[in-house]
């Protein structure tokens, strides 16, 4: 059963490039720290998808294990990051990323 035949790898590369660029655009475009987190997740997703496509192309399981580790690190990162965001909100009463430009509250 080979369901991927007919879609060239270049399509996956282009899709992941576009998704990554959208994530980077979101980090630059938004000021809400929470949405910036979401855009970072979007970029990680693009990388993961490209890694899985390459692992399929090169017949290598190692890349999929790496994707698994990236997911684990992303989950840890989000839990700590959102805790920091809660602390920031408690002290500054805003989630605006520019409120942190002085490195103190």
């Amino acid at each position, binding site marked *: 059963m*080979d*369901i*991927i*035949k007919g*879609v060239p790898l*270049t*399509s996956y*590369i*282009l*899709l992941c*490039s*576009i*998704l*990554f*660029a*959208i994530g*980077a*655009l*979101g980090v*630059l*475009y*938004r*000021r*809400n720290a*929470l*949405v910036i987190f*979401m*855009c970072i*997740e*979007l970029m990680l*997703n693009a990388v*993961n*998808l490209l890694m*899985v496509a390459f692992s*399929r*192309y*090169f017949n290598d*399981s190692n890349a*999929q*294990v790496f*994707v*698994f*580790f990236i*997911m*684990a*690190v*992303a*989950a*840890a*990162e*989000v*839990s*700590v990051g*959102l*805790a920091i*965001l*809660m*602390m920031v909100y408690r002290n500054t009463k*805003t*989630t605006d990323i520019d409120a942190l430009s002085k490195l103190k509250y």
Partner: protein
Amino acid sequence: MITQYLFYFLTFVAIFSALLVVFSKNPIYSALYLIVTFFATAGHYFLLNAQFLAAVHVIVYAGAIMVLFIYVIMMLNLNKEVEPHKSTMLKVAATVCGGVLGLVLVAGLRETELTALSEYSNPSIGLIERLGNVLFGTYMVPFEISAVLFLSAMVGAVFLSKKTIH
């Protein structure tokens, strides 16, 4: 072919909802569109026959991470009114920068010539049996270290959200 149509449909859904994540004014809409993007990505994993990763992706991202996001949005009471606004010039600059990054990536990778290696010959690559062998064979030590990472992340999150630190 049906897989090609499915690929293009999932691609369209992923890119469209990713754009909506960036451009919707309300953070809760961003979170909901992000869930749509995650499901489209999980569909792509299924198309690539990486069934284990598709399941893990749905469980971890749509199940755990998005619940965290939505809880934080609820607790901070974020909505359209309290959304901080950037100046128009900064928005234009950000759009130009992101667009140029996307343009460079697409233009550079559009003509990539890939050596026809194995041409997707082994469909069992993403099944859980094969991945389990690799994960608990070669990558045993990183797997255990990631457990320590989770423990430290949990301790850090609890410590950071306690009320009485100053």
